[in-house]
């Protein structure tokens, strides 16, 4: 029954997405264009990757905010390091070095959490400050625009291109492939591996997971490692897409990213969440942002509208839950 409910949740988000798109499209027909589709996806890519990295942790019941700091630290450090070496090659080495750093950062966090039995959120708070501080003090405090020769054209490398009636030539960036690959991998991990099922088990009932023989600490470590690596990939991708590397990349955004995942149906207390739902949650936030621009709401009032939408979106399930609770209390007796 609940499985159906979760399905419904994703379905509802999907419906909201469609409804929102229709409304915006009616107000401004420019919304229905290949260019809007491609741009929305392009803007979503890094959030897809980061969210897919945080989702497994959240399913196991760990709320992390340090992932944005890891993205910033790994991408910026890698860039400044390669810049110093005079590297002029392609993007691959970036992903490789940053990914390795992300792996280490994730493992460090996993070690702190499992070895000293600490709450994930508290540790992530400390590491969030630490990594940004590390970036700003040890590496550099200003954004850097000098890209290696081999990566300069990357921002405009498209998977497919199309003619758009409004903006002319438009394309879907190749890095969408990373997001898809990562999404499929995380989906597979969650659904088809013992590690993935262990994440759900830990989030559902940690004590029973230990008693049942899940290697809880190992599973935690995998989740942290995955979070570290994917954050790094997202950080580097963002650097190339925006054509500069920023030491305070995403610094104000950890809560927004978590909000997207939660909108997508994941539970902040663990045990629940899907890749599809997360992807829809990310898209919903991006579409809202785009819709606000296209519907002609003045820029300065857009954040307020997002705020109102958020208040409504968070209140509806709460009201529904309250009703359900009262109903259950009385039907338990029957």
């Amino acid at each position, binding site marked *: 029954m609940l499985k159906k409910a979760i399905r419904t949740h994703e379905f509802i988000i999907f419906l909201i997405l469609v409804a929102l798109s229709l409304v915006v499209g009616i107000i401004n027909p420019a919304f229905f264009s290949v260019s809007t589709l491609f741009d929305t996806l392009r803007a979503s890519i890094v959030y897809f990757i980061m969210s897919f990295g945080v989702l497994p942790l959240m399913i196991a019941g760990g709320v992390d905010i340090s992932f944005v700091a890891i993205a910033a630290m790994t991408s910026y450090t890698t860039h400044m390091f390669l810049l110093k070496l005079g590297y002029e090659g392609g993007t691959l080495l970036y992903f490789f070095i940053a990914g390795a750093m992300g792996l280490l950062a994730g493992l460090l966090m996993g070690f702190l959490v499992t070895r000293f*039995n600490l709450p994930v959120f508290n540790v992530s708070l400390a590491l969030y400050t630490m990594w940004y501080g590390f970036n700003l003090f040890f590496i550099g405090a200003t954004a850097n625009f000098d890209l290696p020769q081999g990566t300069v054209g990357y921002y405009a490398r498209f998977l497919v291109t199309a003619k758009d009636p409004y903006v002319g030539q438009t394309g879907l960036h190749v890095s969408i492939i990373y997001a898809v690959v990562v999404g499929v991998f995380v989906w597979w991990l969650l659904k088809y591996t013992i590690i993935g099922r262990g994440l759900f088990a830990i989030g559902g009932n940690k004590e029973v997971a230990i008693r049942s023989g899940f290697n809880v600490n190992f599973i935690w470590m995998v989740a942290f490692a995955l979070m570290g690596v994917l954050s790094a990939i997202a950080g580097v991708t963002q650097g190339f897409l925006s054509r500069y590397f920023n030491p305070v990349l995403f610094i104000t955004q950890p809560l927004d990213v978590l909000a997207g995942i939660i909108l997508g149906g994941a539970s902040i207390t663990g045990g629940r969440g899907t890749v599809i739902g997360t992807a829809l949650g990310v898209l919903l936030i991006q579409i809202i942002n785009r819709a606000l621009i296209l519907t002609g709401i003045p820029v300065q009032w857009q954040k307020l509208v997002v705020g109102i939408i*958020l208040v409504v*979106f968070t209140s509806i399930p709460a009201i529904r839950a*309250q009703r359900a609770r009262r109903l259950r209390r009385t039907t338990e007796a029957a």
Partner: protein
Amino acid sequence: MTQGTNDKPAAPIRRKPLAGAFGKIRIGSETVQLLVLAVILFMFFSIIVEKFLTVRSITSMGFQMPELGVLTLAMMLSIYTGGINLSVNATSNLAAVLAGFFMVRYIPKDAAGAVVTLYLAVAFLIAIAVGWVCGVINGLLIGYVGVPPILATLATMTLYTGISVGLTGGATVTGFPTQLSVIGAQTILGIPIPFLIFVGFTILTYILLDRTSFGFKMRLLGSNPVAAEFSGINNRAIIMGAYMYGGILSAVTGILIMGRTMSAAYEYGATTYVLLTILICVLANVNPGMGRVIDVFIAVVILQILSTGFQMALSGVRGSTFFKDFAWGVLLVLVFIANYFIRGRRAQSS
């Protein structure tokens, strides 16, 4: 215990707490730990940084810490009652923006000193009223609608910031009467006024938490909301009260920020301020139904010592202001680990 040692900063944390008993003394031992940490850090910087132990640098710390300090008290209340309040900083900025608008638009340019003071008082009242309303909205969503605090305040954080952005169009509000700077830049008997305000609200919050029935109920509600309801506590009203007072404290922070910077902006502090307040609460061991105002106060002082200390120690080094962020994170991790061992030892001895 406070005389401490002046070398090996890690030692005092691991040192056995004063008393082996439980209860009050054990809670007190956390205060002692924090105090020792503060003293050690203070001595450490006094030795390695030449001008750290001067009236000037200590006064400047007194000017800097109150904003974050008062805001942390607001955060503390929400955690204490079993929630969290991500909208504290958005509330202070909204309060500052609205009070700032009032001052810029309505204070006559040629007003006499006394009249301006009166207008300032009205502006402060506006700020506090705005903070109160923000708190009421949080309280309604959390207490009455039943939205989980983290989601409710995430939403209102965006909402309140959205109002500030909309009203200011993203610009900074400036042009306040110079009398306002009394709040942010003057001293009484050498003590910075904002620091006195911080101390005042710390005492007020302490009294509220430890000496009133409201605080008593907040603590029990945080400890077990179901049992609180079954004991006849009106949970909704208490939650509402906690967030209302939190809103007022946030507004006071907004006033302090205006006084120091002589401006108001939607983006002041941004997300980092919110996270810093949570971080201080974590350091001060604030948990649902648990935590002491005095510990929060000391934790704020520790943050400031660290921040000023490193800034002065590294002055001239590129990006020196950022080292404190790094150090803060490292310190927090070390405190967690130290607590882990202290807890382990306690569990063994009991």
